[in-house]
C-alpha cells in the first residue's frame, strides 16, 4: 500500500464558526494506481489532499483526527522538515491554476533547477540538462530555448505542461492532480490529460485525480471515490461505478449532466436543493435533505461506507486494485433499474419527511435553504 488515509477529520475554525470540511474519510492508493476523487466544491476532495500534504491554510485549518500513512509512515506526525523533504520528492501536486502555482518573477529554468537541486545532490549543469529533458518530455518545443522564459510568456496549457514537468521532475511515487484541467479549454484539456496519462503510466506514478467532471475520471482513472459534504459516499472501480452506481448522489450527478452521446431531448434530472452548510455538524446522512430515496433513519444516523453486497464469510474488503469492493454509504441504495431512471421506483415509496423538531439541524439557520419544488417536470411536455 502506497498511501492509506484513515478516518481523516479536517476542520476549519473561522469567524463564522467551525467548518466540518472532512468528516472521517478513509481511502487507499496502491503503487501506480489512479484514483479519482469526484465531488462538487466544498465536498472535501481538495481539503483532504491538502491535509495529506500538510498544506492546509494556517491557522484556520486543522487535522482533527485520523492518520495519513504514506509507505507506512504517518504523515500527520512527521516533523515539518521531513515533510518538506517529502513534498515534491515523494508526493507531488499540481493545481487548477498554473499561473498562481508558478512563481511569476522566476524563469522556468530557475524554478525547475531549484526543484531538482532541492532534493537531489546534482550540479547546476546536470539539473539544467534534466530540466531541458523534462520540458521536451511534456511536449514543449525547443525546450532549451524556452528554459529562460517567464511563466507569463506561456499559454495556460503550456503552463500546465510546465507544472507537470516540475511535478514529475523527481519521479515522485504519488501525484496529486487537483482539477488540473478545469481552467483549460476542452481541446487543451485533451492535450494535457493525454500527457498526464502517458507520463504517469510510463513512470509508474500513482495518481489521485481530483475533479468535478465525471467525464474526465471515466477516461483517466481505475477507481473512483465519490465525495459529498466531507464524506466518501461511494467507492468503486471506475467500471463498476458507471455501470452500477448505487448512491443516490452518484446517480443524481450522472443524470444532471447532459451527455454528448445522449438523445438531444433526454431530460436532465436535477438534484434539488443545495449542499448542506458545513458549519453544522452532520447528524444524519449529509445528502438526506436532497435525496429522493431517503428513509426516516437517514435524517438521524450517518450511514457507514459498507460493502454493497455482504461479504462472503472469511472474505475481507478490498480497498485497492481492479477487484476493489464496491462500497456505498447509504441506508437505502439505488437499484439498477432506478439508476437508469434516475428516480425511485417502488410502489408506495416516498422520501421520508424531516423529523419534526430537527429542522434546524438540516437547514442552516441563516442560509435561505428553501428552494421551491421545480414545477418544470410538471409543466414541460
Amino acid at each position, binding site marked *: 500500500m502506497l498511501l492509506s488515509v484513515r478516518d481523516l477529520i479536517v476542520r476549519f475554525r473561522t469567524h463564522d464558526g467551525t467548518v466540518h470540511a472532512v468528516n472521517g474519510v478513509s481511502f487507499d492508493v496502491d503503487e501506480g494506481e489512479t484514483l479519482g476523487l469526484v465531488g462538487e466544491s466544498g465536498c472535501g476532495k481538495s481539503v483532504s489532499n491538502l491535509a495529506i500534504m500538510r498544506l492546509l491554510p494556517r491557522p484556520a485549518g486543522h487535522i482533527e483526527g485520523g492518520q495519513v500513512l504514506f509507505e507506512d509512515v504517518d504523515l500527520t506526525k512527521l516533523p515539518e522538515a521531513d515533510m518538506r523533504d517529502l513534498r515534491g520528492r515523494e508526493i507531488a501536486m499540481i493545481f487548477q491554476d498554473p499561473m498562481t502555482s508558478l512563481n511569476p518573477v522566476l524563469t522556468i529554468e530557475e524554478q525547475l533547477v531549484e526543484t531538482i537541486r532541492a532534493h537531489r545532490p546534482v550540479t547546476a549543469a546536470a539539473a539544467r540538462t534534466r530540466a531541458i529533458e523534462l520540458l521536451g518530455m511534456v511536449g514543449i518545443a525547443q525546450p532549451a530555448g524556452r528554459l529562460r522564459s517567464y511563466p507569463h510568456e506561456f499559454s495556460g496549457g503550456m503552463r500546465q505542461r510546465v507544472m507537470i514537468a516540475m511535478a514529475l521532475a523527481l519521479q515522485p511515487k504519488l501525484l496529486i492532480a487537483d482539477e488540473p484541467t478545469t481552467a483549460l479549454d476542452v481541446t487543451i484539456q485533451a492535450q494535457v490529460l493525454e500527457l498526464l496519462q502517458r507520463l504517469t503510466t510510463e513512470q509508474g506514478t500513482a495518481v489521485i485525480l481530483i475533479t468535478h467532471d465525471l467525464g474526465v475520471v471515466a477516461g483517466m482513472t481505475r477507481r473512483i471515490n465519490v465525495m459529498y459534504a466531507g464524506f466518501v459516499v461511494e467507492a468503486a472501480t471506475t467500471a463498476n461505478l458507471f455501470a452500477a452506481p448505487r448512491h443516490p448522489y452518484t446517480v443524481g450527478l450522472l443524470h444532471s449532466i447532459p451527455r454528448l452521446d445522449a438523445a438531444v431531448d433526454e431530460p436532465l434530472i436535477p438534484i434539488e436543493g443545495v449542499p448542506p452548510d458545513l458549519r453544522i455538524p452532520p447528524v444524519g446522512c449529509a445528502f438526506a435533505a436532497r435525496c*429522493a430515496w431517503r428513509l426516516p433513519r437517514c435524517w438521524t444516523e450517518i450511514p457507514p461506507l459498507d460493502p454493497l453486497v455482504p461479504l462472503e464469510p472469511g472474505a475481507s474488503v478490498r480497498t485497492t486494485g481492479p477487484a476493489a469492493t464496491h462500497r456505498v454509504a447509504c441506508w437505502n441504495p439505488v437499484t439498477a433499474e432506478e439508476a437508469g431512471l434516475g428516480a425511485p421506483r417502488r410502489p408506495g415509496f416516498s422520501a421520508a*419527511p424531516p423529523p419534526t423538531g430537527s429542522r434546524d439541524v438540516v437547514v442552516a439557520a441563516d442560509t435561505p435553504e428553501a428552494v421551491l419544488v421545480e414545477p418544470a*417536470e410538471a409543466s414541460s411536455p
Partner: protein
Amino acid sequence: MSSAPTSVVVRAAPRASRGLWRDAFQRLLRNRPALLGLFFIAVFVIAAVLAPLLAPDDPAVGNLALSKQGPTLAHLMGTDLLGRDELSRVLFGARISLLVGVVAVAFGLFFGVIVGAIAGGVGGAVDTVLMRVTDVLLAIPGILLAIGIVASLGHGQIQIMLAVGISYAPIFARLLRGSLLALREADFVTAARSEGASPARILLRHLLPNALTPLIVAATLAMATAIIDVAGLGFLGLGPGDPRVAEWGEMLTDSARFLQNAPYLILFPGAAIVISAIGFNLVGDGLREAIDPRLKR
C-alpha cells in the same frame, strides 16, 4: 417527467434580513483589536463631548502658585507652567482634535468625492485633467501642503481644518476614481446597462454605493492621521494661536522645555494623541476586514 424526485420543501424560517452594514458591524464586534479601538474612540469622544462636565477646573485659568506640580489627588495629571490643571486641558484638547479631525476629514471627503466621482464617472479628458491636478497635490507632502495653507491663510481653527482637509482630498479622489473604474467593468454594471439604465442611475445606484466602502475605511484611517496632523501643526506653532485654548500639539510645544523636570506634561497630551490615533487605526483596519471578509479566513 413525472418520475423526477419530488423534493421536500425544506424551509428556513424567514427572518429579517441583515443588511451588509449590520453584518459588517457584527464582524467588527468579533474582532478584538477593533473592539479595543472602539473603546479608545469612545473614551476620546466622551472626553471631548463631556469635557465641560468632566474637567475639574477651567482649562484657561491657572494659579501661578501651583506652577508645574506633579500629579496629585487634586490635579491627577499635575499642572502646567501657568498652574492650569493638566487633566482639564487634555480633556478640552480632545474637543479641538475631534472637531478639527472630523471637519477636516469631511472637507477632504467632500472635495475628494466630487473630484473622484467626476473623474471616474465621466472619464476621458476630464479624468485626465483632474487626475494630473491631484497628482501634483499628492506630490507635495500633506503636512507641507497644510503648513503652506495655514501660512498663507493665517492662524485659526477654520484654517487648520481647511488645510488638513485639502491635503486629504487628493487621496480620497484617487481612491474613489480607482474603485469606480474597477466597478465599471463589473458584471452587475453591465447588467444595469443591458437593462437600459441611464448613466446617472448607474453612477448613483450601482457605482457609488459600492465604491463608498473603501472610502469609509480610508476616512476612518484618515481620522487618525488628522489627529496627528493637527497636533503636528500645533507643535510647529501653526495651531489655533490662542494661548487660552488647549490644543494637544501646542501643549507639547509649551512643555517641551520642561522635559527634564516635568515629563508628565509631555506624557499626558502625548498619550492622548497616541491613544486616539491608535483607536481610529484599529477600527479602520477592523472595518476593512469586516466589510471585505475575504481578506481574512
